C-alpha cells in the first residue's frame, strides 16, 4: 500500500511536470496550428540560459529567473519572426520539417556550447517546501513546481479571459479569417503566442532541470513525450494538457513500478497509438470537421 501511495504521488508530480511542459506546446498549436517539434529544445534552452545566468554571470536566483524568462520571450519572438512567418500558408510538411530542423539546430548548438554531460544547478530551494507526511515524501522541488505551475495557470486563465491581447489570441485560434476581418493583427498574435510559449517552456525547463539535472538529450526526450500528453488531453486545450500529463505520468510510474522499468518509457507511445485510433481529438480537444 505504501509503495502504491508513493507511486501515486510520484506519478502525479511527474505528470504535472509533463503537463506544464505541454502547456507552451498547446499554446502555439492553439493560435497558429503549428506542431512544434522543437519544444524539447526550447525547454532545454530555458534550462541552460538559467544555468548560464546562475553559474557564469552569477546573478542572484530571482534575478536570474526573470532574466531567463525575458530571454526566452525574446527568443520565441525571433523564432516566429524569422522562421515561421515566411511559411504562413505553406503546406503542412514544410512547417513540420522546419520545426524539426530548428530542433536539431538548437540541439547541436547546445551540445557545442555545454556538451552532452549532466549538469546541475547549485541547490537554492528552501527545505521548508518539502513535505514529509507519514510514509509519503515529497521533495521541495515538486512543491515549488506545483506552486509555480498553478500560478502560471491562473495567470494565463486571467490573461486569456480579460486582457485584450488574450482575447485577440483566442479569436485567432477560433477563426483566423474572421479575426483578420475584424481588425485583429494576426501576425502580432502569432508572434506573441510564440513568445509566451517559449517563456512557459523556459520556465518548465528550469523546473525540470532542478529535478533531473540538465542534459540536452533528456530534455529533448521530454519534448517528444509532450506528444502523447497533448494528444490525450486534446491538442488545443490547456487544461487538457495538465490532465493528460497527469494521466501519462501515472501510467508511466505504475508501469515502471509494477511491470518493468524499461517499459515505462514506451508505454506513453503505445497509449498514443491507441488514442489516435479510437479518439484522435483527445479528451478535451475540438474535433475538426471538414466540409467540402
Amino acid at each position, binding site marked *: 500500500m505504501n509503495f502504491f501511495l508513493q507511486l501515486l504521488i510520484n506519478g502525479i508530480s511527474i505528470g504535472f511536470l509533463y503537463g506544464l511542459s505541454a502547456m507552451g506546446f498547446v499554446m502555439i498549436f492553439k493560435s497558429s496550428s503549428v506542431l512544434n517539434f522543437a519544444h524539447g529544445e526550447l525547454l532545454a534552452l530555458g534550462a541552460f540560459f538559467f544555468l548560464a545566468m546562475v553559474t557564469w554571470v552569477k546573478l542572484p536566483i530571482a534575478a536570474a529567473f526573470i532574466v531567463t524568462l525575458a530571454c526566452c520571450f525574446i527568443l520565441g519572438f525571433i523564432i516566429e519572426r524569422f522562421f515561421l512567418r515566411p*511559411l504562413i500558408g505553406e503546406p503542412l510538411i514544410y512547417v513540420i520539417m522546419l520545426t524539426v*530542423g530548428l530542433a536539431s539546430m538548437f540541439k547541436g548548438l547546445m551540445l557545442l556550447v555545454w556538451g552532452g554531460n549532466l549538469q546541475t544547478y547549485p541547490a537554492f530551494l528552501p527545505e521548508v517546501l518539502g513535505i514529509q507526511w507519514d510514509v509519503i515524501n515529497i521533495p521541495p522541488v515538486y512543491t515549488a513546481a506545483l506552486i509555480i505551475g498553478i500560478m502560471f495557470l491562473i495567470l494565463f486563465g486571467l490573461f486569456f479571459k480579460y486582457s485584450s491581447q488574450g482575447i485577440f489570441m483566442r479569436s485567432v485560434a477560433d477563426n483566423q479569417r474572421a479575426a483578420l476581418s475584424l481588425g485583429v493583427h494576426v501576425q502580432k498574435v502569432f508572434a506573441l503566442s510564440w513568445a509566451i510559449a517559449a517563456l512557459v517552456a523556459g520556465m518548465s525547463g528550469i523546473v525540470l532541470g532542478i529535478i533531473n539535472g540538465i542534459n540536452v538529450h533528456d530534455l529533448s526526450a521530454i519534448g517528444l513525450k509532450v506528444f502523447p500528453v497533448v494528444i490525450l488531453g486534446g491538442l488545443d486545450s490547456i487544461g487538457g494538457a495538465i490532465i493528460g500529463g497527469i494521466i501519462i505520468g501515472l501510467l508511466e510510474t505504475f508501469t515502471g513500478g509494477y511491470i518493468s522499468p524499461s517499459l515505462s518509457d514506451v508505454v506513453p507511445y503505445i497509449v498514443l497509438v491507441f488514442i489516435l485510433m479510437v479518439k484522435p481529438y483527445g479528451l478535451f480537444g475540438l474535433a475538426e470537421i471538414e466540409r467540402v
Partner: protein
Amino acid sequence: MKKLNFHPCGNYKERYEQEITIFETDFGRLWSWIGIFFLFVILPFISSPYFLHVLNMVGIASIAAIGLNILIGYTGQISLGHGAFIGVGAYAAAILATSVNMPFLLTLPMAGLISAMVGMIFGIPSGRLKGLYLTIATLAGQIIIEYVLVHWESLTKGTMGITLPRPSILGMELESDRSFFFLIFCCLIVMIWLAVNLMRTKYGRAFIAIRDNDRAAEGMGIPLFRYKLLSFGISSFYAGFAGAIWAYYMVSITSEPFTLGLSVEYIAMVIIGGLGSVSGSIYGAVFITFLNEILRWLTGIMMNIGVITESGLNVAPLREFFFGTSIVLFILFEPRGLAEVWRIIRSNFRLWPFAY
C-alpha cells in the same frame, strides 16, 4: 532511321503517352546511358577505397530516400518512422541469414517484404487520421519499434548485435567495397526504374491525387485507405531493402543507428533533394552523405591543429547543427529542393542567350 527528339519550343503534346514519357528528348536517354557507363565501367576503378565506401553509402541512402519520397513527396503522408523501418529490414536480413541460413539473394526481398508488413501496420492509423495526427502516429511507431529492437532479446540479441555471414551470389563471395559497389548500384538502378514507372501507372496517379486533394480523390473513386496503406507498404519495402543491404555491408548490426535521428536525416534528404521527384531523392542522399563526410573531415582537421582541444567534442553536435541549418535554409529559400535548382540551371543553359 527514327527522327531524333529535341526540345520543342512550346507545348506540342497531343497524346497522354507523350505527357508521361520519361525522357523528353533523345539527349536525355543518351546522357543517362553515358552516366550508367561512367558509373559502372570507370568510376569503381579510378576511385580510392574510401571514396568507394562513401559512394556505397550514397547508394544505400538513395534507395531508402526514394522510398520515403514515394510516401511523403508523392502521397503526401508525412512519416517520422523511416529510420525504424530501415532497422526492421536490417534485422530481418540478419535474422534470416543467421538462423534460417537463407541465401543472400532471397533475404533482400524478404527483408523488404517484412519491413513492408510492419510499415503497413503503422500505416493503419492513416485510415482515420491525416496530416499532423498521422505524423504523430508514425513518431510513436518509430519509438515503439526502437524499443522492440533493443528489448526483444531472444530475437534481436539486444545491444549485443548480430554478425552476418559474408554474402555470396551464385558461389561468388562479395567481400571488397568494389563488389558491393556493383551490387548496390545494380539494385539502385532497378529501384529507380521501379519507382519511376510506378508513378506512371494508375497507382502512381492515385497517390498524386491523394496528395493534391484527398477529398477530391475519394470523390473520383480512389479508395483512400487502401492506397495510403499501399504507399506505406511500398515505402517501407524500399526502406527494408536498403536496410538489408546495409546490414550485409556493415557485417554486424546493432539497434544503435536506427533512431529518430536517422528518420530525420532521411526526411532531410527528401526535402533538400526535392519532394515528389525520384532524382531529387538521389541528390538529397548525395548531399547529406557528403555533408556527413565533410564534417567528419573538418572536425578531424580542427582536432589536429588544436582549435578544438576538448576531448568530449566529436562530430555529432556539429552534424546535428548543420543538418538542422540546412533543412531550415532549404525550406525557407528553396522549398522544392536541389531538383528544382538543377532544373533552373538546365533551363538557363537551354534558353541562353535569349531567355524569354
